[in-house]
């Protein structure tokens, strides 16, 4: 699993970086050369938000830092500039200062690279810089963005994260949670990893609502490569793929946990669907508590390895971490219960709701998703949402012949409602979000 070492507890003193916002925010809109300068500084290997903040604090503006680096005696000046006036901070290594000087000399090429990758640089002080991220410790000075960040300005933003090796049931829960949140008007953010993250993003893409993915490396080093199509679909759907790293930065064991603070920080709440005992999703959950965000975990059987992380976290943070006892309950707890049901949620019956302000968001039944399709497809789809995963089980439930089940699975796959995985079949797309309990 990703390194657990870099958690919220190990990074301190971040509050000082507020200086950056002050430096640029004071003059109203951020100047273009400052934004470019930040992008160049972020391309320097070994230079993080903390040091950039200190430099800007001492030197005045990002552009001034670059000018200083490019001038004679720049390296020494930079090392000097990275310490506090009272010497409270440790000076940066001269190697990093040299790298800054090199980047300053190379700025045109670095900026070209960013433009060629089709990226925008959104810095603190820009109007569309996510407002929730400004508050967090160690906020990134700028983000490299593909797509639109408008969705992060919404009323409610919820992160849905989890293991990269989920069970079929976990994947379905992630889809259902993401779909329900979307329908309740919340924006879903996640980390574009395979597994739970991917299922959450894919559910939003299927719903046709924007979603935002924070990736753990540069845009040119998209990981996992298997998700480049999903990334394209997210951008095409009005959402964004976002990184705090320059385009060519390789994702490493250390970058993912750092990135996790952005997932939790950009959201009001984090929902962990499935997590093994050492899952990186627990890092996100810890960040959420640190950042004062709500933290929800989907519990599981005490025997299930994919639930060990969630169950353990609930035990360790008893009272702070909250339990997801059902999707309506989750929406209720998130304050989304009052939001009117969106169109296209068949089966919703206002009269049937409990009196205590239960969610009005209803997930569709398999029948509704499959309306107009042939009966064999419907029968197989219903078996799938009820948790049948292998052909034997589908045959047992539907009483169809093996050949008929296989044919129906092909038709479901062709319309993007099911797919095979390691000899099992699982619902995807809008069928993944179907509620097994809905009639």
């Amino acid at each position, binding site marked *: 699993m990703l390194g657990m070492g870099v958690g919220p507890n190990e990074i301190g003193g971040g509050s000082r970086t507020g200086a950056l916002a002050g430096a640029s925010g004071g003059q109203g809109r951020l100047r273009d050369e400052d934004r470019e300068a930040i992008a160049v500084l972020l391309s320097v290997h070994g230079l993080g938000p903390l040091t950039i903040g200190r430099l800007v604090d001492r030197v005045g503006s990002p552009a001034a830092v670059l000018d200083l680096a490019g001038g004679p005696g720049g390296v020494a000046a930079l090392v000097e500039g990275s310490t506090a006036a009272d010497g409270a901070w440790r000076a940066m290594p001269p190697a990093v200062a040299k790298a800054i000087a090199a980047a300053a000399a190379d700025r045109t090429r670095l900026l070209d690279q960013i433009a060629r990758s089709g990226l925008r640089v959104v810095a603190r002080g820009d109007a569309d810089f996510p407002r929730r991220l400004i508050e967090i410790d160690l906020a990134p000075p700028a983000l490299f963005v593909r797509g639109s960040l408008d969705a992060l300005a919404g009323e409610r933003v919820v992160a849905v994260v989890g293991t990269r090796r989920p069970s079929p049931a976990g994947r379905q829960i992630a889809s259902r949670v993401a779909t329900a949140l979307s329908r309740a008007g919340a924006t879903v953010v996640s980390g574009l990893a395979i597994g739970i993250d991917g299922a959450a993003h894919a559910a939003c893409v299927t719903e046709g609502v924007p979603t935002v993915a924070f990736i753990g490396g540069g845009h040119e080093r998209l990981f996992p490569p298997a998700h480049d199509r999903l990334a394209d679909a997210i951008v095409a759907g009005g959402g964004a793929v976002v990184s705090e790293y320059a385009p060519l930065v390789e994702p490493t064991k250390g970058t993912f946990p750092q990135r996790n603070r952005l997932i939790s920080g950009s959201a009001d709440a984090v929902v962990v669907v499935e997590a093994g005992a050492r899952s990186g999703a627990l890092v996100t959950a810890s960040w959420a508590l640190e950042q004062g965000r709500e933290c929800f975990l989907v519990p599981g059987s005490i025997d299930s390895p994919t639930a060990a992380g969630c169950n353990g976290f609930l035990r360790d943070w008893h009272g702070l971490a909250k339990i997801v006892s059902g999707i309506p309950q989750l929406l209720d707890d998130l304050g989304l219960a009052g939001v009117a049901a969106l169109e296209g949620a068949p089966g919703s019956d206002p009269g049937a709701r409990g009196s205590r302000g239960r969610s009005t968001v209803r997930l569709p039944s398999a029948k509704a998703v499959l309306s107009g399709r042939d009966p064999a497809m419907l029968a197989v789809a219903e078996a799938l949402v009820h948790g049948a995963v*292998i052909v034997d089980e589908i045959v047992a439930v539907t009483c169809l012949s093996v050949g008929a089940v296989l044919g129906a699975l092909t038709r479901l796959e062709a319309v993007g409602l099911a797919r095979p995985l390691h000899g099992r079949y699982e619902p995807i797309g809008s069928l993944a979000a179907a509620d097994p309990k809905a009639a």
Partner: protein
Amino acid sequence: MLATLLSATLVALDGRVIRVEVDVAPGLPGFTIVGLGDASIREARERVRGALRNSGFVHPPRRITVNLAPADVPKTGSAADLAIAMGILIGSEQFTARAGRVALIGEVSLGGEIRPVPGLLPMVAALARRGIRRVIVPVDGADEARLVDGLEVVPVARLTDAVDALRSRRRAAPTQPARVELAPVSGLPGRPAPALAPPLPPPDLADVRGQAEARRALEVALAGGHGLLMIGPPGTGKTMLARTIPTLLPPLSDADSLAATIVASVSGEGPIRGLVRTPPFRAPHHTSSYAAIVGGGPRLLPGEVTRADNGVLFLDELTEFSRDVLEALRQPLEDGRVAIVRAAGAVTLPARFQLVAATNPCPCGYAGEDSRCRCPEAVPERYVGRISGPLRDRIDVWVTLARMPAAALVGGQDPESSAVVGARVAAARARQLARPGAKLNARVSGRALRLIARLRPETSNGLAELADAERLSGRGTERLLRVARTVADLASSEAVEVEHLEEAARWRPPAARHASALAV
């Protein structure tokens, strides 16, 4: 005095008639064999010497020269022992043989017993083609020799019996070929399987619980002669399913069973009591050498690909076979034969086998098992991707198995038995062989396939849509149609319908699938 007798030797799967000339001349005692004999022929000297002495004859203390003619054909094996021994007895005038064209085949033991030799059937067949009407064979090979029509077979147990047979003019009534079933016996190549430990009978399909998808894949693959690859974690029943194959295939036709019997005879698969009617099922281990799979060696023994001719070659742990071996499967899969080229010339052996293979989904074997797989993320895809292009193209039916939930194993109705599924396979094969060309769907040409698919316009559109949705290549589309034709044959349908295409689409390679889906 000079004695001339007829015998035979093997060149790969063919018998060759040879003339054994024995000259017993005065001079210093000695024993020389000339005529391109291999080590086993040179050792005949010692066997014959002992056999003569221990049968009450005299090994003449004279200059013995044995010439095996024609001199340019390399001779192998011990089949000429008996002819050499008789030649010495006649040449040293210890008895007089009646005139007449008689051939002798058999190995002698030091005690004077006549032992069976591998390849008796093709050797006797070669003698019959040359017009020889009487052949003396080891008693254990009598049934095998009698498979050849129009020839008097004289079985002998000891050297003295052979002497009697050569002296007499008595004719045994020509016997009808004994056409009885013979299960192929597995054992090391070239070694007769030990008679005391018969191989385990294959399991019945009813013994395999669950795995409905893989059972159906197996049925479709066997019905159309398609290559099959089963991917799944250990313990999901891949090998068990493959082992039921002998119970599912229809018996061989007359021509095929003769070919199969010849291969079984040359491979030395124990005593042959009749035509081999059961299609061969060969399951070489993944550490098998190149020569063991392809064939060859100094005696040009048939390899596993030839021994699986007209049957099934099952490669368990496909990805663990050496790359050379897998590459060598290319030619037999393409042409149905394998050429073994030597400095001395080339021989071509038949190798029209159906490939059935199994592999784990990833190096650790547990991809898809919740958190049990310890492989890095992209490794499972790459593992099956190791199977090289030409081999992939020859595998029409791909199926992935998952571990069965315990509930599905204990509950439910009894699965279908081999007899039920085998009947469907046989009927589907009969339908295919009744069509012009009489080929199984796996071997029908692309053009002929379009004709026999009898696609209606709506079905054609369905095929195009399916191919588009799955981004199938031309080859992929043809493969889909080919398997669909077999599914239709299993359903006794004249034309390929959309439902058959939809089922066939389940059996395409997983790589094509990954590219088409929005991976999450």
